[in-house]
């Protein structure tokens, strides 16, 4: 055990009414990439907070280099060489990269307390170079892509001489290629002797990167395996406690008439000549690299932004949505990618959230009919199996998967014809994913036309009838899912120059 750098023994942490960690253990070797997996609420985040000193465990032992250590706070953990890179990057968008890296531990002149910017910029440049970064230390953080911002976070961790780096779902907001870059960085760090705890919902991340994997379930430790020795199915069973027979339970649905047609839709600087169509009961996947313009196309169709040219037809009639309210009225719903920010009013009850886009249906001459509102919300909550005590529960108290269902419910209050789902399973655990796919199946069966924007290849291939691939603002391929392969989609998604 000489090469064990961090060991957690019997860690328990309770919050009022919840056991967040129940006697879990975890062991990290020097220079190892160790994946930590489990469904949402399994206790992964709490464990990170214990290791970074945000929470103090109620009982149990933390051994660092074999010595019992108390981690009293975030500063303490930094001093001990532990750093975390979070899924949603916590940065200062108006400051430079250098400032973001060194904030909190800037080097100052002992007498004048003046910050030595020259020195800091030079050190930042060094760190960025070691990570193969393609941006300058003086660049503004806010102008960088999410992937680049993550690299800054990693540089920040290295600047504190971190020996243990925790990456919390780093690949969730990244495209395939950006993920590859991140894998390479993680491997470089590992080879330098840094130990990495890698948390991800993506099985492919784990198989690609980690040497060992530890699984938590319901706040308990399930087991630790060598990645080479555990198969995909066994791992899923370990995580959910049951076998998910079919991860992508796409059902065959009778496909009806065309319900949405987009013709040569263009918006300068974002997308050009985008055409596609969706039929009733059909699930159309829209894929491509992040930045290919998928979300922008959807936003233009829905009326959040305005296209410069091109036409959209909904059920045969032209739709020129200047505002989302018009799209909703005509029967086109949109589930945004940034769900918590754009989809929900967290401090509101389930019922009021559900009816927000369609208050007309629950009011007469402007007066609200609360009873009708509540009963409709109840009906939808039951249909989508939202786990809550009542529709009066605040949305903030629901788990991520259930919040997702509430957003879906928002789209079902009226007579929708087409529903656009932008990355519907992003950051959602395996169990909730299955529930969302089930909902999509039901919607398709009910005759809705569905557009699913997704970056996850498996999901695109597993859940759609047809696939539209976008590249740099244009549709580069339209495929029948039956004939599509991962290779075909990838080559359509990536520019020709990158194929080599």
């Amino acid at each position, binding site marked *: 055990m000489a090469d064990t750098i961090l060991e957690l023994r019997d860690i328990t942490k309770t919050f009022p009414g919840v056991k967040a960690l129940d006697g879990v253990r975890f062991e990290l070797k020097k220079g190892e990439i160790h994946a930590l997996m489990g469904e949402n609420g399994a206790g992964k985040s709490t464990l990170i907070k214990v290791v970074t000193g945000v929470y103090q465990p109620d009982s149990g032992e933390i051994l660092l280099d074999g010595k019992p250590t108390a981690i009293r706070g975030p500063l303490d953990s930094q001093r001990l060489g532990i750093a975390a890179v979070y899924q949603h990057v916590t940065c200062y968008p108006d400051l430079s990269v250098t400032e973001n890296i060194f904030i909190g531990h800037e080097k100052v002149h002992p007498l004048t307390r003046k910050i030595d910017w020259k020195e800091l910029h030079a050190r930042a440049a060094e760190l960025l170079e070691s990570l193969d970064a393609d941006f300058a230390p003086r660049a503004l953080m806010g102008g960088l892509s999410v992937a680049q911002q993550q690299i800054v976070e990693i540089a920040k961790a290295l600047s504190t001489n971190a020996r243990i780096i925790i990456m919390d779902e780093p690949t969730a907001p990244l495209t395939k290629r950006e993920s590859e870059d991140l894998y390479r960085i993680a491997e470089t760090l590992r080879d330098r002797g840094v130990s990495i705890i890698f948390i991800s919902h993506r099985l492919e991340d784990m198989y690609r990167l980690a040497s060992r994997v530890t699984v938590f379930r319901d706040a308990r430790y399930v087991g630790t395996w060598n990645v080479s020795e555990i198969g995909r199915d066994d791992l899923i069973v370990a995580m959910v406690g049951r076998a998910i027979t079919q991860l992508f339970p796409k059902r065959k649905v009778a496909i009806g008439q065309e319900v949405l047609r987009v013709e040569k839709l263009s918006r300068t600087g974002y997308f050009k000549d985008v055409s596609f169509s969706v039929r009733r009961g059909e699930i159309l996947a829209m894929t491509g690299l992040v930045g290919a313009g998928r979300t922008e196309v959807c936003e233009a169709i829905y009326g959040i932004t305005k296209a410069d040219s091109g036409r959209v037809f909904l059920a045969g009639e032209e739709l020129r949505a200047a505002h*989302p309210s018009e799209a909703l009225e005509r029967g086109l719903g949109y589930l945004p990618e940034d769900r918590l920010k754009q989809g929900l009013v967290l401090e509101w009850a389930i019922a009021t959230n559900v009816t927000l886009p369609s208050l007309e249906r629950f009011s007469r001459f402007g007066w609200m009919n609360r009873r009708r509102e509540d009963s409709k919300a*109840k009906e939808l909550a039951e249909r989508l199996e939202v786990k809550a005590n009542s529709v009066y529960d605040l949305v903030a*108290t*629901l788990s991520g998967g259930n919040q997702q269902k509430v957003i879906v419910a928002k789209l079902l209050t009226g007579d929708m014809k087409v529903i656009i789902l932008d990355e519907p399973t992003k950051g959602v655990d395996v169990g909730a994913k299955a529930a969302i796919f089930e909902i999509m199946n039901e919607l398709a069966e009910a005759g809705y036309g569905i557009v699913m924007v997704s970056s996850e290849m498996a999901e695109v291939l597993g859940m759609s009838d047809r696939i539209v691939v976008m590249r740099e603002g244009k549709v580069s391929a339209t495929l029948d899912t039956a004939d599509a392969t991962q290779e075909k989609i990838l080559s359509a998604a990536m520019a020709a120059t990158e194929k080599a």
Partner: protein
Amino acid sequence: MSGEMIKGTARARVIRSGEGFRELGLLVFIAILCVAFQLRNHSFLTLANIKDLLDNTAILGILSVGMTLVLITGGIDLSIGATIALAGMTSALTGMVIPAINPLLSILEGMAVGLVIGSVIGLLVARFNILPIIATLGLMNIVRGATYIESGGAWVSSYQMSDGFKALSTGTTLGVNNLVFIALVIFVLFWYFVNHTKTGRRIYAIGSNPEAADISGIPRRRLLWLVYATMGVLAGLAGVLWVSKFASAQGDTALGYELNVIAACVLGGVSISGGSGKASGLILGVILLGMLNNALPLINVSPFWQQFIQGVVILAAVLTNVAVKRNNIRLALRKRAI
């Protein structure tokens, strides 16, 4: 699931009562103050004095309704003191020129002035995305300046006003002073608006989560314009009533009064950061501030101390608000445990 739903209704009531705790606290605080004032001065809880207090607080109440709408959207309006002055001055000057003018027309005139000012602010905020504090700061100065320009710096005094105009604030409707009557009507309309209309619901939504409101198809810009225009109309109304009540229109009428109005809203539990505020809390906040304004002189507290005490009470109210909120969140999270 239906069984759980029934259980949930009971729980929803519990959560609501957790929020109601705040209003209860305010009510208790008001009661304690009443007792304390009564002990110091036995004429405090007389009918005449309570009537006085209400008469003097009515205008504050009218304005607080408009301000609450603005605050719920996450905005603020610093221009209302100036709007009061301009609307009051304009109606008073008109009354000087046409003494026979119907007082109700004077009121409409003041409201029209307020509507113009509020519309401009609404346009700046909703259409041109200017921060409300900046837009209204600018308008505050413009409107105040306009008042001085319009009047040439002179006052319109009591003898220059018609009796009908002055009777606006002294007369009664259904046995209640006009000011109080108007304030009550506005409060009832406000209560109904925020609790039972879809527009009211949407105004909370744009304050709570503007992005989600946009995605949900809520016409945010139109509603923002609406709240500032409403605030302007109410300020214009208040301006005419103010001039009638004090029988004097001056360039510096209601100077800085917007801060009193904001204080009343905050005391009533309206959040400056938007998204929350209730009619029941607001009315208590207005009464509490009205009591501090009117009763402290009555029990011989020196004017110097009056302001000091007001400040302490406001901070105390905000601190309790924070504590209650934290407690509610903790309760909600505890319930999350499944």
